[in-house]
Structure formats: structure tokens, C-alpha cells
């Protein structure tokens, strides 16, 4: 029998030995980041650090800019003509938004999994092979596809049907295929924008287990609506909220700390209200 636990309880039960700050390797160093769509600031003055081999979760109510934020890390906001990014994001010390930086090169190293599974309307094999193909990593393509599917814990389910349409898979399988698709190009960071919000609980558990496995090799950043999920999987958690100023809504970072701290002894009243479900 499953006992439903509050995120606070979940976070308390997790024994977590995070390396002390001086041993953490900074992957992303964000400072003073503001994102505007036209004149509206969707996200205001965010500064935080994302560490290597950590799972970092962004939580907060709808419209707090957490999806906008995660899309800054692989420059997906470039695809929206009205979006403008101010401030800096250093990736291993290099400014992601420097004029000489090629967005294509950024996305090669920093993979992304989306909210809704978005397999290409092609075979399972072609889906995983797409990234390596466009990036010219075609040596031992079949081996690469197999490794990626194994890492995504999907290989055993699809190994006999690699030529079938990816659309014939279930939603949970499709999402793991999308993860495999990212892993096939051997990225450094995996960004996940609410990867389990469209999935059933069993598929969600599988994706969460997968993240535990993957963080040994990858740095994972995840946006989630689900606070239990953040409490279960994240090492660090950032809480975002909505600020209304002059009638304009914009997202702000309220608090960023180790997950148990965020859920058990948050420094900010707004964080406490949110994680304990008193958010109004």
C-alpha cells in the first residue's frame, strides 16, 4: 500500500550527501538574467549556479517563468523573434549569449526534453539516429543508437521493433525515446521541461528512476509542477514566483538552496507557503 506523503516528508526522508560548496563544479553561472517578450519581462533578474552531476529543479506556480528560464540554457528562446535576453549565463565560464557563440553548437552540448513527448514521425531507430546524423557522428551509428536506448531504459522494449514508427509507442515510451534521442549525441547537460507532466504515474516513476541513473554522467536541470517530484529527485531546488508590478506579471527567483532546505526550513515565507500547500 502506498502512503501519500507530503513533499516535505519526502524531502526529509532523503538522505542526501551533497558535496560541500567548495567541491562543486559550476556548469552554469547565471547572473542578472532578464527575459522579455516584447515589452513584458517574463523573468526578472535571476542569478544562480547550476552544479555538475546535480539534479537541479525549478519549481513554482504557472506563469512564474520557469519554462522561459530553462529555455535560456540552450538558447531555444532564439526561436521566438520577440524574446530578448539580458544578463549573462556562463557555461563552463563561457558566455552562452556572446555574439560569436553558435546556438547550434550550444544545443549540441545541452540537450532538451520537452513537456509533451515529441518523437519525429519516423522509425524508432531514425529518431535516435537523427541527432548523430545531423551532427556528423555517424561512425557505428547502430551501436550509438543501442547505447542511447539502453541508457534511457528503453532498449529491451524496442530492440525487436526499431523500424516501427515511433508514434506506435506509448506516451511514457515516447518520452524515454526523446531522452534517448538527446543522449545519442552525448550531451553534457540534459534540460527537462516538465518531462513527466503528460505521463501516468508508472511512467513518471520510470523517468524519475532514469534521472537518478543519468545524473552520474550528466548534469540535469528539470522544470516541474510536481513538488513531490522535485523533493524526490532534485539535489538543488529553485523556487520561482510571480511578482506583479505596475500591473505587469513577471517571474522572479525567490529562493535557491539544497532541496531538503527548501522543503523543510526555507528562508522565505513565500517558499514555505508554496511547499506546504498554503500557496494562495
Amino acid at each position, binding site marked *: 500500500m502506498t502512503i501519500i506523503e507530503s513533499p516535505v516528508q519526502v524531502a526529509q526522508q532523503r538522505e542526501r550527501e551533497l558535496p560541500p560548496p567548495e567541491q562543486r563544479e559550476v556548469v552554469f553561472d547565471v547572473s542578472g538574467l532578464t527575459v522579455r517578450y516584447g515589452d513584458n519581462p517574463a523573468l526578472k533578474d535571476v542569478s544562480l549556479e547550476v552544479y555538475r552531476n546535480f539534479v537541479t529543479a525549478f519549481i513554482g506556480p504557472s506563469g512564474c517563468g520557469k519554462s522561459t528560464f530553462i529555455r535560456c540554457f540552450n538558447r531555444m528562446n532564439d526561436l521566438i*523573434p520577440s524574446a530578448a535576453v539580458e544578463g549573462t549565463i556562463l557555461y563552463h565560464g563561457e558566455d552562452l549569449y556572446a555574439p560569436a557563440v553558435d546556438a*547550434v553548437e550550444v544545443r549540441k552540448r545541452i540537450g532538451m526534453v520537452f513537456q509533451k513527448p*515529441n518523437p*519525429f514521425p519516423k522509425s524508432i531507430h531514425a529518431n535516435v539516429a537523427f*541527432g548523430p546524423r545531423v551532427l556528423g557522428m555517424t561512425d557505428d551509428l547502430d551501436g550509438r543508437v543501442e547505447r542511447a536506448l539502453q541508457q534511457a531504459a528503453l532498449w529491451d522494449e524496442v530492440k525487436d521493433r526499431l523500424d516501427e514508427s515511433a508514434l506506435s509507442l506509448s506516451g511514457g515510451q515516447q518520452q524515454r525515446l526523446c531522452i534517448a534521442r538527446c543522449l545519442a549525441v552525448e550531451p553534457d547537460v540534459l534540460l527537462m521541461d516538465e518531462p513527466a507532466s503528460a505521463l501516468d504515474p508508472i511512467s513518471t516513476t520510470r523517468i524519475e528512476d532514469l534521472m537518478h541513473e543519468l545524473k552520474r554522467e550528466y548534469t540535469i536541470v528539470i522544470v516541474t509542477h510536481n513538488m513531490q517530484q522535485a523533493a524526490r529527485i532534485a539535489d538543488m531546488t529553485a523556487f520561482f514566483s510571480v511578482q506583479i508590478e505596475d500591473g505587469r506579471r513577471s517571474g522572479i527567483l525567490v529562493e535557491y538552496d539544497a532541496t531538503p532546505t527548501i522543503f523543510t526550513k526555507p528562508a522565505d515565507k513565500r517558499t514555505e507557503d508554496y511547499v506546504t500547500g498554503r500557496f494562495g
Partner: protein
Amino acid sequence: MSAASLSTGRRRGVWRGRIFVGLLLLSMAVGFLALGTLCVDVLQKGLAYFDSVLLTNGPSSDPDIAGARPAILATLYLGVLLILFTVPIGVGTAIYLEEYADRHRWPNRLLELNIQNLAAVPSIVYGILGLAFLVRGLGLGRVLLAGALILTLLVLPTVIIAAREAIRAVPSSIREGAYALGATQWQVVSRQVLPAAIPGIATGSILALARAIGETAPLILIGALTFISFNPTVMGPFTALPVQIYNWTKLPDEKFKALAAAAIIVLLIMVLLLNAGAIWLRNRYQKRW
């Protein structure tokens, strides 16, 4: 409330539903009846002349040995040239407008508006343009190539609109997924968007082609001659099947009218084959991923 209260004794909206279905059937019947009547009429009149003489002989003043070989061949040539011209230009334009152009800038908006309006311009206007610009201005002469170019201009807006719709129907999540893997814009378009849009593009293009093959007015205007007894060449004078039909129906001899009906059967078969091709292409690409 008890379960019995669900039986109110009357069913609201039933008649409205029936009337609606009736109207739908009626509108379908209009199309079917018109097409059916056309087919039956043409078959009755033309079947006697629908034989190898029609397909292999050239035109003649004697209806019993008159055929439409040059016209059929010219129509086939026109069709092939039309595909070669319209599909690359039309799909290229559609890709540019959908994937590259900034829709908020006025030159692109003007372009879009223009294309939509061009699709509604009567075909005779294209004929006049072709006569003035291609035949005389460029000095191309009254040749098959000029005919193909005019038909290209005529159906290009339709092909562009169909291709744009097909490209727009590709979900943006597919584009995002491809971009997120480090694909360039060209790779996203050529490897994801275009393959996914092919069924729609093929259907739209072939329907436009089928319409162009039946066009008469612009071809008459640039002088698709009627009495051509030799096989057409791309740079030579020509006639086309619809023009041949038009001319035969003008002749007083009843036998020529039957001959025209037989030629209509040939034209219908060609159009049907094209449409069948479109359906085949669509199904093939829908299954094959």
C-alpha cells in the same frame, strides 16, 4: 431523482439532426449527380469512337479516321513540364514564406496577399499575359513551352497555398525537437518539416495539375493550333486535348461531337490517373515512417 425521469417521452433535437443530415446528403447529391450525368452522357456518346484510332491517329477532316494523338501527347508533355516547373518553385516559395520569412514585415505580407489574389485571377488573364510577355515579349513564339509556362503561372498560387498549408500542419514540437538536438535550420526543414509535409504537398500539387490539364482558354489565346498532325515538340507548335475537344464540338458533323465525347473520356481517364497517383503517394508516405 429516479431513473424513470430520463424518459421524457420526447427526444429534443432529433428533427434538427435529421434535417442537417438531409442537407448534407443533398449537397453531396448535387456533386454526384452532376458528375454522374457528365460521365453517363459522355460514355454514351463517345464510347463508339473511344478506340485505337483516337489514340494513334492525327486529326482529319474525316471523322472516321480522325484521332487525337498529337493533342494527347502535347497534354502529357504539358503535364510533365508543369510538374517540373511548379513543384520546385511552388514548394520553394512555400518553404520560404513559412520557415524563413518574418511574417510581421510588410513586404512579406504584401507577397502573401498577392499570392492569394493571384489564385483568383481568371485563366484568360494569364493567357493574355503569356501572349504579350512570353510569346511576343520574349519572342518564344506559339510553342508548347510557352503553354507550359502559362499554365505554370496559372497554378503556381494554388500549389504555393497548398504547400504552405501542408508545411504549417507540421507541429512546431517537431521543429523544436530537431533544433534542440543541434540541427541547423536547413537540416530541420529538409529532414523533418519537408518529409512530414510531402503527403499534403503532393495532394495539392496534383490536384492543381489536374485542373491545369483541363485548361483551354489561355492555350487558345496563345494559339494552340487545332490542326496538328505531327507529334508535338517542346519548342514547336502544339495543340492540347481540351483545345481539340473544344474544336471538335464546334464542327457541324454529329460524328465530330461523338469524337469530342471520346476525347473527353481520354481526358477524364488522365485526370483520374493523376488523382489516383496523388492518393497513392499520400498513403505511401503516411505509412512509411
